[in-house]
């Protein structure tokens, strides 16, 4: 079975080699858990180390801020963009909705735009950060589900391996914000911030990965100055 490595230290061991190509993965977790960093590492490593054209769609932060923030981990996004293998589009949601209103665009137009970029640039790895903001543009649960399914199907059919980030409420065991996201993806990776005394300990678990074997334990990870590092042999909770 061919798998594509994420390039994130320790994570590929949890995933028994990496992700299956052409699959959609939901990466959920509370604010500050490092979703954007993990997602960025996945696409940045893809472009820089595995020769796979990658696309990062931001709906939270501006591109400039993201470039600056990721630069602190040593990810030179400007250089990667200049080399033509890494693409970053989008911006803060307010700015995106402003442009959408200006040209009377809807979510399907945004999906169409992502499709156009994927096709024209031969993209193989995609990150949508975050899916919550995209679904916020739709009113009913049915619309949310349909748009997410359309996005996931489109990316899969074009052979893209995709990470969709989703912010969950702190302290809950929910896999996603609206409870619909996990049903349209092939895999779910959850990040936790568990309070231990006066500090939060980050934990990561692969909850679902269709068609692929994976580690079932909650493992410890850290956000270091080189990005996220997962400790695939360290369990979050000791056995009693």
């Amino acid at each position, binding site marked *: 079975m061919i798998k594509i490595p994420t390039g994130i230290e320790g994570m590929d061991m949890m995933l028994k080699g990496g992700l299956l190509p052409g699959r959609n993965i939901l990466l959920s977790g509370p604010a500050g858990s490092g979703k954007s960093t993990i997602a960025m590492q996945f696409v940045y490593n893809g472009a820089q180390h595995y020769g796979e054209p990658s696309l990062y769609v931001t709906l939270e932060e501006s591109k400039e801020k993201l470039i600056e923030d990721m630069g602190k981990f040593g990810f030179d996004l400007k250089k990667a963009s200049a080399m033509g293998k890494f693409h970053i589009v989008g911006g803060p949601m307010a700015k995106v909705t402003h442009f*959408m209103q200006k*040209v*009377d*665009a809807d979510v399907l*137009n945004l999906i169409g735009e992502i499709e156009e*970029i994927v096709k024209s640039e031969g993209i193989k790895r995609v990150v949508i950060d975050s899916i919550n903001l995209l679904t916020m543009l739709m009113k009913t649960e049915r619309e949310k589900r349909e748009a997410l399914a359309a996005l996931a199907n489109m990316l899969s059919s074009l052979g893209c391996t995709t990470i969709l980030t989703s912010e969950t409420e702190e302290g809950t065991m929910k896999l996603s914000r609206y409870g619909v996201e996990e049903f349209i993806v092939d895999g779910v990776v959850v990040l936790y911030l568990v309070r231990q005394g006066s500090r939060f300990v980050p934990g990561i678990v692969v909850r679902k990965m269709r068609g692929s074997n994976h580690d079932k334990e909650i493992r410890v990870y850290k956000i270091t100055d080189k990005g996220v590092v997962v400790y695939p042999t360290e369990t979050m909770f000791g056995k009693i």
Partner: protein
Amino acid sequence: MKKIKIDWRFGVFILVMVVIYLVVFLFPGSQNEFSLDPSAKEEFWRFGTYQFAHLDWSHLIQNIVTLGLVSFIAVELKTRFKFFSINYFLAGLVAVLPLWIISPFVALGASVAIYSCFGYFSPKTKQFKLKVWLIIIGIKVFIFLKPILTLISGAEGFGFALKQSLAHLSGFVFGLLGFYMFKEVDKFLTKRKQYVLRRA
């Protein structure tokens, strides 16, 4: 059962047009006041009014019925109302002009605008796996049926019938060109809509 969504704007469009046609028709001397008349070239507003004026009740009813048919076909062919209505009014305004400038004649009625709809619809029939060129030829034959029959029967009025058919043909050609023009406009608008993330 799948719910069919019908664009209610086509219904409103027919209603509004029927009201305008009736008001204009009932206006005393409307045929003289609103028609496109070579003897009143300086009254430029007639370019905008002639499509709403009708000769008699039969002319009016004939055009209302055909307009109803045209709107029904528009819904069936899933025509975008925005483009349909722009094409309709624009054709009523300018489609007859080339012919009128070459050979001026008294023109009135909505038939040029209505024929432009048939021109607009012709390429859309492709969705029903119909041969577009066959549809176009069929409509053209229908347009020239009256002068052909007049010529064959030897009856009077061949010249008028031919001029009328040529006006209808200009409407039809306008609609046909309109379809391809609006297709490009639509492409451009869609492309604009799909340039949000890269702009943000």
